[in-house]
């Protein structure tokens, strides 16, 4: 999974620059989907809230659009290795203008399950 992190750097581009980038992005994405390497991604609106606390009692505005770490969208890749995913991230046209792309393997299984199993195994070893 590619997570796009950035502030609203595109507000700093001219109309010509923006149009050029949009065309590059479109061509880039069409090439990847044509090769079967990317599934449709989604862009996220730059608004939202964060829910936290027991029973979700805290609902706060944010993350703020100005944050360079804020997630602006994602893309799901169908590739075998993280190296290939990184190479695809590196070929993303928007990187030249700012922001960053977080590359994360999608888990087959919830990490909580895996950790619970590890702990159970350790306990068995101690008791054995």
């Amino acid at each position, binding site marked *: *999974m590619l*997570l796009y*992190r950035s502030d*609203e750097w*595109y*507000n700093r581009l001219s*109309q010509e620059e*923006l*149009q050029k*980038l*949009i065309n590059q*992005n479109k061509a880039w994405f069409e090439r990847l989907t044509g090769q079967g390497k990317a599934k449709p991604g*989604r*862009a*996220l*609106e*730059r*608004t*939202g*809230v*964060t*829910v*936290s*606390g*027991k*029973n*979700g009692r805290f*609902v706060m*505005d944010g993350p703020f659009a100005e944050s360079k*770490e804020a*997630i*602006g*969208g*994602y893309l799901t890749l169908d590739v075998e290795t*993280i190296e290939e995913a*990184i190479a695809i*991230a*590196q070929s*993303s046209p928007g*990187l*030249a203008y700012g*922001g*960053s*792309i*977080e*590359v*994360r*393997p*999608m*888990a087959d*299984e*919830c*990490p*909580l*399950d895996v*950790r*619970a199993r590890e*702990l*159970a195994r350790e*306990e068995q070893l101690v008791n054995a």
Partner: protein
Amino acid sequence: MNMNTQNQNGYMLLFRGNDWTKSLSPEEKQKVTDQWMAWFKRLTDDGKAIAGNPLERESKIVSGKNRVVSDGPFAESKEAIGGYFLLDVASFDDAVAIARECPGLPHGVQVEVRPVAGECPIASELKHEAQFAHA
């Protein structure tokens, strides 16, 4: 933010926090996992969740003109994203109500709720600018 907002493109829940399981016993961990899976299954059966995945802890960041690759965000980060749900619900209210059911919340998980955009915000920006230019 206005909680009555409608959005036909749905909402995304981003689960933040990676170190919250450290203080749990194996039994507690199993319990939260089972609750989480049952929660996702119920939402899927109700047609409210259309996708969801946990993410592995392994993580790289690609950035800048030179496309530098670095490690991160670190698994210990409270802000790190551990997984997501894509929701097919019509209002922000519904999405927040679902976020508040997250079984990880009592243990310190934070759930970010974000409306999914119909089109790339960069493209909307461009249209907006064009409108101004012709006004």
